[in-house]
């Protein structure tokens, strides 16, 4: 799946204080459930789809974060597969990935772009 970037619009989601350090929150962005993670050690925010393709439930924002082989990941809280937060790619099954959205913190606000930037499957 390849989604061509249509716009470069940053969408305002929430305040920085709404983030949970080293954990995830779920935002509703134009009808999409987006899981947003803030890893203070990397000083980065990440945004991926909240939908877990293995359990078919909207749960990824509720997974534990960490790194595996140096890449930031979240583990699905249902069946524990890991997803690379930079690419959306599943570590256990390379043919599966979730949407991955550009995210940033600017002026105390968390913003994302909805044009999914995941690895082409």
């Amino acid at each position, binding site marked *: 799946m390849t989604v061509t970037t249509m716009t470069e619009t940053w969408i305002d989601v929430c305040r920085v204080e709404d983030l949970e350090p080293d954990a995830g929150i779920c*935002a*509703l962005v134009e009808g999409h459930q987006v899981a947003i993670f803030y890893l203070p050690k990397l000083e980065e925010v990440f945004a991926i*789809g909240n*939908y877990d393709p293995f359990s078919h439930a909207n749960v990824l924002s509720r997974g534990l974060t*960490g790194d595996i082989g140096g890449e930031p990941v979240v583990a699905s*809280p249902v069946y524990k597969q890991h997803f690379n937060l930079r690419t959306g790619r599943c570590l256990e099954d390379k043919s599966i990935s979730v949407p991955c959205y550009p995210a940033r913190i600017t002026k105390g606000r968390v913003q994302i772009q909805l044009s999914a930037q995941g690895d082409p499957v």
Partner: protein
Amino acid sequence: MQRKKLVIIGNGMVGHHFVETLVQSPAAQSFDITVFGEEPRPAYDRVHLTSWFETRNPEALSLASLDFYRTHGIDLHLGDKAISIDRTHKIVRSEKGIEVAYDILVLATGSYPFVPPIPGHNQEYCFVYRTIEDLEAITQAAGESRIGTVVGGGLLGLEAAKALQDLGLETHVVEFAPRLMAVQLDEDGGAMLQRKIEALGVGIHTGKNTRNITPGKFQRLKMEFTDGDALETDLIVFSAGIRPRDELARQTGLEVGDRGGIVIDDQCRTSDPDIFAIGECALWHGQIFGLVAPGYQMARVVADLLSGREAAFTGADLSTKLKLMGVEVGTIGDSHGRTPGAHSYVYKNEADEVYKRLIVSQDNHKLLGAVLVGDSSTYDTLLQYYQNGIDLPQPPDALILPNTEAAPTGLGPDALPESATLCSCHNVTKGQVVELIDQGVAALADIKAETKASTGCGGCAGLLKSVVDAELARRGIEVNKDLCEHFPYSRQELYHIIRVEQIRTFDELLEKHGKGLGCDICKPAVASILASYWNDYVLSDKYFKLQDTNDYRLANLQKDGTYSVVPRIPGGEITPEKLIVLGEVARKYKLYTKITGGQRIDLFGARLEQLPHIWQELIDAGFESGHAYAKAVRTVKSCVGSTWCRYGVQDSVGMAIFLENRYKGIRAPHKIKMAVSGCTRECAEAQCKDIGVIATEKGWNLYLCGNGGMKPRHADLFATDLDDETLVRIIDRFLAFYIRTADRLQRTAAWMENLEGGLDYLRAVIVDNKLGICAELERQIQHLVETYECEWKKTLENEEILKKRFRFFVNAEGSDDNVVFIEERGQIRPATLEEKRRIKGIPIELEKAS
């Protein structure tokens, strides 16, 4: 090639072993095999017959499945006894009228229990101890009895006595000889064993010859002895030795011994060259072997001969090590010192009730025999000296003297020659084990499966493990026990680090001893360690990010992203008012309700944002968090106990509630389940729990490390007749020791299986205080008990946490539209994918993902 007909009479341990050996040998292709067994089930482990009492399940003892016989095309006739052999026409006939022709016949008819011809031995409530059916009958009779007596103080007699005692009977043993285990033990050894067993509450009557069994005055039966004494009892179990089953052989004219037994030569051939006899029915050089290992050896000899190989039975070592009623006993070789010129070294410690004797050769260099009572820890080492003719250290008594610095530490596995037999049941040598390890088979379980070593009587388990460990160590093979890529330590090592350095947060631990960001393995593991040590609030700022989603939301995540809620119901006792509250809450929030295995009520289908509202109502009604979401002490199941039950002997509900309130929520490497039964009928199923308590007349029996689930494990009986206070103290220590030493996500059952030294070691640590840590273990639990807080109550007081972590969207109201329920049997359940598609079209995320 024309296949020959092979008939085997008898499907006991030896008969089955023969079949098993044969089907794996070259001879398998040359025979059509027919087996007759008179018992209703295929071969089972008679050596461990007594363990039937633990499970009451014949399957657990089974050695063979019907499938095994089917797969190998063997014609198996169970519950059908062979009743005649026609040697002229070479035909075997069975009770049910089946006739089978044979070319080769193997008799594995075993033995029957010898019952002395005492007048009255044949009446009701007189039993033998041989088959599962015997045990079933004894169990039933014990239910209507107070006193039980075993006739025979040998190995099996003492085992039967233990069974009677475990069935709750006042137990006596009557022995004709002047001491217990007269065949194996010398006088002093027998006397020491008697003292130890009497101390366990069993009446021992040696040198008693029963003259008559008549109706009793106070009990059901009266045993009158020739010396004028008498003993009243409600049931009698005869276990006075075995006699070979040779009636078929006699009938068909095979040579039998004067005192019974089918005469065989070194090839296990009877007086008819087409008929073999193996096991307890066979008489070799005037000897009957009442042990399984020699029977297995005979089975292998015949299988070899039928495969065209040379083989001979050359006698067997009768050394044994066992535990009788918890008393360790070992005998090796010439335990009576009858070899000419032999002399002895004796160590006798009446304070600790330990007796050890070495019998050595005239020149002092070789071990001829040994007797060990009360401490058989040196058995494996001594057996190797004996079997392999290894020169004894000088002076040899160092081997039995208590451990002093000067004493040799025993014969290490490296000292054994490759030819040394590790497992005599399955004839496995050290060389075979080493060869397997050379081929890359490194796991103990795989080595056992491959060689069958230590799967017979199990006596060599310790030795096998030490050989495997030593061989692996020599090859520099080390099992990586690192928790994950972020910490080069095992869970236990991290526990030590956290304690010694008084570390309070994950970040501090990661900074000092780890690397990277951590992961879903190490974060919850460290959170659990910190909780079991400091017991701080799990959702506080420093801890929440370590928690798995269940702990994070204090509820159990279900497959559709909703949660289930389990309030605590201590001991399963609940008032009608509280039941109504649960019903009302479930109805109000439209939750699915189900009774759990731990005697609680689980409410399913709660959305994340509903959890605080649901819990507010539950807390207001007096409920507490049930910690079903945590790797922690969960429930203490109980039966109704002496309060209501006609059979209960203690207040099991009261004890269960006390234990649950004491230990609730204590975080551990994995979940912990407990149960308390009010009597030996065990309605709370305590023996499949991590911690099981069963009431006795005198107090409580404690069972540890049981497990149901995927790999069931029967709990080990750890201590008996404890008073309330001692029970709680031992559970305190057990919990703390498990929490400190187990691997991540290791239940107590697996922990015990991997604990070096096993049950005895655990007992040494938490009962005898071998490591001197008991006070500290108790302090740790006391701290956890004192700092307990209901996590939901605390959370409901924290507006910020509620607002932040119990709403679905950070930037919008509303909830997950992918949660869809269907009604079934009057309640909700999550919709399947198909149903969701039908109801609301395919969610956009679904399309993208697929």
